[in-house]
């Protein structure tokens, strides 16, 4: 077999190894680039930053362990920002795994960096309820009809921050960190458009291009994948540099991400070059 033929029939395990190295080596070398926020992410930052202190922000954790590398930095940055600004943050989940992820993020962000925040006055963990878009539909008209208690089973009306929340339109902003269905699309359809409530959030990179038709009128901003998370972290650090240490999760992972992207592009080019050389050889052979 000629060299080109060998190249085209290469064992895919070698490709696996190369992509693994493309990820591991930059991580070992601690390659970190500067990330700059793009307009579609900056609008979310500006909205959260511009809300008056004490605004009511709903933060929905709609993802599972599979997409934690992309979604967790987004969720934690949003949570951190809300705590910095003193917004009343209502944490819920439309995915069963979202409740567990929210607990993890509350521990990592609020209990670690903002220990003086009071549960029930500054933030509340409402937890998961089954029903997907049925849940969003139910809480749109009667929030406390579904959430009769918080996630720990305590009566909902015993929390000061729940006093003026009766339906979704009472919220000043809905933020959702999602990875599929039900997700940001359902939030836009069943909450944002229905009640004219500002909706923004983050999704995995797979979903992001599909949500662009909603931007900017129905979805005021969108974080797409790890890059989106890194951009929000960068925007946060630009405005509040004292949070740099804890806001580097996604930014740090952009190094290996960049290298891996280049390797994939290289694979596609090499594959195509080899293919076209092969085609030309076959054409020549047929002519002879």
């Amino acid at each position, binding site marked *: 077999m000629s060299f080109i033929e060998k190249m085209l029939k290469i064992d895919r395990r070698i*490709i696996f190894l190369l992509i693994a190295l493309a990820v591991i080596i930059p991580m070992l070398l601690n390659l970190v680039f*500067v990330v700059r926020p793009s307009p579609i992410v900056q609008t979310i930052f500006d909205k959260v930053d511009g809300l008056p202190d004490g605004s009511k922000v709903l933060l929905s954790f709609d993802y599972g362990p599979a997409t934690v590398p992309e979604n967790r930095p987004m969720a934690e940055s949003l949570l951190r920002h809300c705590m910095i600004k003193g917004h009343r943050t209502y944490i819920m989940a439309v995915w069963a795994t979202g409740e567990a992820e929210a607990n993890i993020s509350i521990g990592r962000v609020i209990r670690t960096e903002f220990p003086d925040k009071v549960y029930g006055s500054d933030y509340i963990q409402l937890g998961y309820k089954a029903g997907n878009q049925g849940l969003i539909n139910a809480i749109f008209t009667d929030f406390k009809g579904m959430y009769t208690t918080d996630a720990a089973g305590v009566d909902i009306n015993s929390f000061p921050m729940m006093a003026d929340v009766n339906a979704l339109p009472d919220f000043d902003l809905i933020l959702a960190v999602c990875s599929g269905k039900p997700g940001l699309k359902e939030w836009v359809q069943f909450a944002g458009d229905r009640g004219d409530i500002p909706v923004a959030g983050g999704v995995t990179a797979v979903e992001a291009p599909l949500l662009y038709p909603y931007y900017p009128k129905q979805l005021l901003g969108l974080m797409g994948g790890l890059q989106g998370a890194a951009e929000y972290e960068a925007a946060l650090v630009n405005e509040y540099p004292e949070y740099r240490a804890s806001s580097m999760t996604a930014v740090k992972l952009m190094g290996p991400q960049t290298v891996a992207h280049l390797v994939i592009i290289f694979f596609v080019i090499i594959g*195509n070059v080899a293919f076209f050389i092969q085609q030309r050889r076959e054409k020549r052979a047929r002519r002879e």
Partner: protein
Amino acid sequence: MRREIPLLITFIVGTALVVALFIPHHPFPELDGEFSIWFDIIAVFAFILGGGNLLKVHIDRIQRRHRDRFFSAVTIVGFLGTLIIGLLKFGGSPGLKGNYIADSNAASVYTVADIKDPEALVRKVNAGHDPVSQYLKGNLSASTLEMADRIEGGASMPDPARTQFIDELAKALVEDLNVVLTGGSIFDERRFAGVKLDRETRAMIANPGAGHEEGIRLNRRLLQSAYPDEINPSHGTTWFRVIYNGIFVPLGATMFSLLAFFVASASYRAFRAKTREATVLLIAAFIILIGRTPLGYYLTFWLPEPLQFLHIPNLSAWILSAPNLAGQRAIMIGIALGIIATSLKLILGIERGYLGHEK
């Protein structure tokens, strides 16, 4: 009859929900809300159905001595094990109370749940017969002491008001105690002379940790030792949460991460620019792949002002918000029309496939 009633149900529910959008008056918003809650509850039964079906399929495999029956057994053990652990709330608070997914609270500040008997606790502290109670009394706020005096005064309260009062007393106590918990070690030989301390607490006193968390951990143990009947012991992490962190998360995350390897392999072996359209697709993909990383900035930041639109991050942002938006919007409109038509057909009973083919 067996097919007519379901069709009728679909028609009534679907029509009510559509009409509710246009008639925002009683009874439609209430109907909308109530139907939504019913939907959410039935969704839980759908999960139970899924679980039951899973068991059925895998038990069947074992009975038919299928080649992979050992692995079916693994699925069944994993399923039943997680289910029992979650439903019986193993670990965590004793009994069935408490959060099924609670984290250990041994190093957290108190919540109302931690005070087993607020009335008895406040009586003991107020009486101040032992050194610990005297110390705590000195750290209670004025309003808490006032509430304590109301209890001492023997004021009798009818039941709903009494429960509420105890509730508020517990909250006030928790607030004061948390100041004590977070204010540094409360251990003093003489203060805790009459209190029975277990071996682990003594070990912690001998080797106090440096962190804030260690301090709270020790103080919690000390207070619980001093008031075993009034304060609940700390609970550990529930086994369900451990299963989530140790089994569910690694399995789920790794399964998805395998896809990266396959995407790389497919890019090399299958992605061929055989037509002009495919080439356009590839070029757009390349610009996005580079533009969505910091490298995109470094490659073209030197471009002069009039050519800034060719700056790769700008170019990739433009591709996303113009041609990509247009294409995705057309697809979205097409899908929306399909869903609207199908929904109408389902409500009107024209589309009956969901009923199955039995008589």
